[in-house]
């Protein structure tokens, strides 16, 4: 190998100017140029034990694809990635690489780790721009497998099984495939045409996608087996939004992050779809500190809010969103109200005129300031309210982004499917549930987590399904 590029700093990601991007829905990160990609790939030391691979939930052979980049064989690099990942253009954008592959990178010890995620994105975008030919269909074995949900776990499981020759059908409850990739993650972080392209690639591999079918309602898991499917994978996600159970949460102008983002992304309010109403403008408060909260806050800003605040009960140090997203949000002018917890959402009420059109709409949030306690036995510093520190934050729209719980529709209609007390489906290490032939993965099992961990679960289940069904191939 040629001498590595020993620059301690990685090539910065070109981005849209914060002042401009805060008012549009175009992608924030613009992607590496070929020159940047070549330079960055040269920072890899090609470690023998490849610690980066151990940090990847789907075990992409990272040093090998970086070597292909250095050889300018970008399609070769893409082929290496797709052996492990069905959605490279997605993962290159939304994976928390800083906690995964890049966290294990040796270059990160005395400088910045190699920008593996940025290189993955470069390779995937290069492929999408330059390669039009259809994937080669593998020999078909005729065994039918049903996948419930077309989010990251379902698409990965479907892709892996299709590549092994299975006859795969994906059932999706909404009118378009992609799950959280289309209803949740906004355009400026993950352009929808990229998701559509990845789904199209699966279709070309022979995967059938049936939208508008709610498993648990339109069809049950038992009926899928009666229809001839030999295995079922449940990747139905963590659907149900949580609320804080404080007064005022049913006022007009209070959204779950799911609803706000779905209106903007899936229902296209971000493109001013005249058929999708959404509250915009004015002052917006987002309650929560995860990636979804960042997405909601930045979406509200782009829809035209005057002022957007993120209200989070711990400090910046504990804020769970990706650092990069937080930095982007701060650059765009999102305000962070840390160590602050809502106690009530306040609404307008005109006692003299029940027909006053402002009645029932949000006017603000009552908050109380918090301080962090001494670490408990688990080392966690709990937020504790400071007595008498109550204050009111003005708001026209409040977006609750405090997590979701698994959707109970399938559990409630599938006999013998064991779930945890919080509603997650119980699986073994291979993704098998308490029902024979029924596998599960992603947020339906873990509760809200990341795209890549869901993909990892889809991959594990696909392997287990293949091991269980391949002996039946004639």
């Amino acid at each position, binding site marked *: 190998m040629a001498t590595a590029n020993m620059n301690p700093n990685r090539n910065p990601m070109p981005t849209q100017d914060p002042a401009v991007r805060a008012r549009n829905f175009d992608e924030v990160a613009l992607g590496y140029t070929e020159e940047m990609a070549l330079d960055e790939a040269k920072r890899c030391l090609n470690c023998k034990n490849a610690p980066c691979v151990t940090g990847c939930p789907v075990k992409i052979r990272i040093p090998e694809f970086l070597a292909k980049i250095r050889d300018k064989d970008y399609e070769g690099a893409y082929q290496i990635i797709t052996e492990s990942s069905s959605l490279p253009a997605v993962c290159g954008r939304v994976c928390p690489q800083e906690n995964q592959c890049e966290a294990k990178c040796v270059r990160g010890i005395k400088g910045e780790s190699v920008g593996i995620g940025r290189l993955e994105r470069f390779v995937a975008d290069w492929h999408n721009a330059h390669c039009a030919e259809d994937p080669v269909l593998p020999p078909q074995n005729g065994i039918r497998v049903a996948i419930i949900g077309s989010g990251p776990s379902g698409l990965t499981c479907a892709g892996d099984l299709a590549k092994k020759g299975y006859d795969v059908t994906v059932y999706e*409850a*909404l*009118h378009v495939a992609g799950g959280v990739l289309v*209803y949740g993650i906004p355009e400026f972080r993950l352009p929808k045409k990229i998701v559509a392209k990845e789904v199209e690639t699966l279709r070309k591999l022979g995967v059938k996608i049936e*939208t*508008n*079918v*709610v498993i648990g*309602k*339109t*069809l049950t898991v038992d009926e899928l087996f009666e229809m001839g499917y030999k295995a079922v994978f449940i990747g139905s996600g963590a*659907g*149900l*939004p949580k*609320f804080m*159970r404080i007064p005022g*949460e*049913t006022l*007009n*102008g209070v*959204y*779950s992050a*799911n*609803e706000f983002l*779905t*209106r903007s992304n*899936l*229902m*296209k309010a971000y493109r001013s*779809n*005249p*058929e*999708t*109403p959404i*509250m915009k403008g004015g002052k917006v408060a987002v309650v929560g500190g995860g990636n979804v909260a960042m997405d909601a806050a930045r979406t509200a800003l782009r829809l035209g809010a005057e002022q957007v605040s993120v209200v989070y009960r711990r400090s910046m140090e504990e804020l769970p969103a990706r650092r990069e997203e937080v930095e982007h949000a701060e650059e765009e002018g999102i305000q962070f109200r840390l160590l602050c917890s809502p106690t009530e959402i306040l609404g307008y009420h005109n006692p003299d005129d029940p027909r006053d*059109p402002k*009645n*029932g709409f949000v006017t603000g949030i009552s908050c109380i300031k918090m301080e962090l306690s001494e670490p408990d036995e688990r080392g966690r510093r709990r937020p504790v309210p400071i007595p008498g520190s109550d204050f009111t934050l003005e708001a026209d729209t409040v977006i609750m982004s405090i997590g979701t719980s698994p*959707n*109970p*529709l399938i559990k409630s209609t599938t006999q013998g499917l064991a779930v945890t007390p919080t509603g997650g489906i119980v699986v073994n290490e291979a993704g098998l549930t308490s029902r024979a032939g029924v596998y599960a993965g992603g947020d339906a099992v873990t509760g809200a987590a990341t795209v890549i961990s869901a993909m990892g679960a889809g991959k594990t289940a696909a392997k287990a399904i293949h091991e269980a069904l391949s002996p039946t191939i004639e």
Partner: protein
Amino acid sequence: MYRIAEKKILNPTVTQLQIEAPLVAKKAKAGQFIILRVDEEGERIPLTVAGTDPAAGTVKIIFQTVGATTEKLARKEAGDFLQDFVGPLGVATELEGLKKVCIVGGGVGCAIALPIAQALKNLGAEVTGIIGFRNGDLVILEEEFRACCNTLTVMTDDGSYGKKGNVTLPLKELLEKGEKFDRIIAIGPLVMMKFTVLTAKPFAIPVTVSMNPIMIDGTGMCGGCRLTLNTPAGKVTKFACVDGPDFDGYQVDFDEAMLRGRMYGAFEKHAHEETCNLFKKEGK
């Protein structure tokens, strides 16, 4: 895509469509709903199922033209296609064990009340029907109700057909005469359901109401359809799409539901006008 097999105009603002959706037709029960999109980029609207023909694979929907989407839907003809049609969603109305039931329907809500009345008749229950409309021109499904109700009273606000007054008048008379219904099932505008509950309260007769709030996905994901129940254990938030659409009328916070129904009032009025203008332009 989902083909419209049949179209029937029930009154100047209410239309009935039979949609080809075999999987939904096989499963849907009285009280459940579907979500449809008229076209690409269209909004998702929930409509309660008005009947099914599992053999023909069709689902009947009856809707009133109230906004941009229902306006577009009403202009579709037999043979046209709808972009999306998904269901059945929600929990079916609980009818087992009911022997004597009063069905109260208001306006287009009668379309949802009818399959429940029919199901009750098939279960051998005695069904008293009270249906109300603003005026005689808007009366729908009267013959169908007569066929499945032991007695039927038709009310109009202006007295232009049937008896004059709202649906709570005959209900109150019946209750005062000592009629002991196992249950009252009220489906119609929120204000009608609210006053049906108030009318029944002194007689301690259970009332089931059918809620139809704003929603997107219909599977519990958005939480937009949440409503408050005042239960003995305190206030509880429920999602109409997965926990309903039927609820115990005594527990529903109707005033809050009415305020929530107005969330996008200004937007909808604007969108409806835009659509009407578009159709006017096309007409020229």
